[in-house]
């Protein structure tokens, strides 16, 4: 990953925001802060890699914010902080889409490892997204005939079956198949299946 990773802090307590900013900056993160879930949602989609959010806040509470945030299609990992962490609260937070849950007051190590897990998840998500974008780009370079053959192959037809279905020779199918693999920069039929699933999950 290049550049600083950004942590978004949402807490209504001035001292908590200030101290978290200083602590995380000392650990090499870039920081954005918001005083409430409302303020964060109003600011629109922020660029960040991880959100640290208190559950109890004036206006919309943490869990509501989290749900609305998820509903809006954003999936930055969220770590929920709470001052009176009970099991029920933790379960609700995780069910609402939080990746982790830390109880205040936490020590720096605990927080940093939660952030580490969240960022790892973020990285995996971004990598997968990049892979999909690249696959889509590559897939777009296939000719209509190649796309047709690719979907028949993925649906399980052997070369002979494809040839029969399209009324062309097996030899031609083999040529197309080689071109498809080379354009998509993949080696086997199973790579093609995976890639087609990425491109068109629906």
């Amino acid at each position, binding site marked *: 990953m290049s550049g600083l990773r950004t942590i978004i802090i949402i807490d209504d307590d001035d*001292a908590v925001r200030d*101290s978290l900013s200083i602590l995380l900056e000392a650990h090499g993160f870039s920081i954005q802060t918001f005083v409430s879930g409302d303020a964060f949602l109003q600011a629109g989609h922020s660029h960040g890699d991880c959100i640290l959010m208190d559950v*109890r*806040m004036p*206006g919309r*509470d943490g869990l509501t914010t989290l749900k609305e945030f998820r509903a809006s299609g954003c999936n930055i990992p969220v770590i929920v902080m709470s*001052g009176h962490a009970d099991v029920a609260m933790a379960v609700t937070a995780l069910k609402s889409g939080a990746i982790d849950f830390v109880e205040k*007051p936490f020590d720096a190590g605990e927080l940093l490892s939660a952030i580490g897990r969240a960022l790892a998840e973020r990285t995996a998500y971004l990598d997968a997204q990049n892979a999909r974008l690249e696959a889509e780009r590559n897939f777009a370079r296939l000719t209509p005939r190649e796309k047709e053959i690719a979907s028949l192959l993925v649906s399980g037809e052997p070369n002979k079956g494809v040839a029969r279905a399209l009324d062309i020779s097996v030899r031609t199918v083999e040529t197309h198949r080689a071109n498809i693999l080379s354009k998509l920069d993949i080696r086997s039929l199973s790579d093609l299946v995976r890639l087609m699933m990425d491109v068109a999950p629906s």
Partner: protein
Amino acid sequence: MAQSSALDAVVSTMVDGLIVIDRNGHIKLFNPACETIFGYSAEEALGQPVELLMPEPYRSEHSSYLHHYQRTGDAQIIGIGREVEGRRKSGDVFPMHLSVGEFQEGDLEGYVGVIHDLTEEVAQRQRLDDLRESHIHMSRLASMNQLGTVIAHELNQPLTALTNYLSAGTTVVQTQADVPKDKLVQLMERATEQARRAADMLSRMRGFVEQGKTCKGYHDIEQLARDALALVRPSFRNTSINFEIEAEDALPEVYCDGIQIQQVFVNLIRNGSEAMDGIDPARLTIMLDSGQSDAVRVHVADTGKGLVADNIETLFTPFMSEKPDGMGVGLSISNSILQAHGTQLSIRENLPRGTVFSFDLPTKD
């Protein structure tokens, strides 16, 4: 003589003690009730100076009272009656009501005293006071119990910030070669400030739950209101209620039990805030002004759903609550606290919506 023996019968069967003393203060009559009260037999008491029945300081001063009265006619107790202390044969001192009359009938003259033993009444009064105090204390504990989890969260805020500042300091020292001194000092100062914030919160809580005999003194009413607000406010952090204190400039101090008045504030602020559940705009205002002379007037106003007229009568009745999880003791406790301060709660409608609770507090003992 029939009349005299009827009188004897009355004197010897009456429940209150009857004593006759002569001008020199010697006991001339000591009825059976006196024997019971004081523990002396009539035989022992008759002819003795009446000081026998008094504890200090009355014992030493009595004869000078008597002479003072005989010289000036200035009565301290004669014809009046009041609560004084008596002394039994056993040496026990006890509260009693004494009323004294003076008589002169031919060559018979002197003073007649009627004595009512108040030991039971005073003990009863004391028991009631103790009961009232522990009741008030229990209700304080109950409200602290309700506020507790929320306050624990509140306490965790400064602790979190404190830990963060210190961890940041450690990290900075460990990872940077030349850390500027002022940067570290700044971190330490902020950490200290958070420690103090946590300590303040704790001491406010401790003060509130402490078992205490009623202890009146002079207090800054605005500070009492502010402290109470700090205790209640965290419970309503998730709401959009606006809390305000509007205090007139240079208010005199009030004479009250600070903790108990805080308790009244806590009850009223909570009631008001709960009454505004789901209402917008929600505003809770505490107004402090110097109403009449020698008093500060306190109003706690909300913009909530208001009271239904039918309910006003049962408002101060314990265990009658409109709220599903209410104990119904808040207002009755508040009112009994205020009554012990010689005042009471009054209620009126807030316009255009809501309720105002008001009371006065004295500025003098």
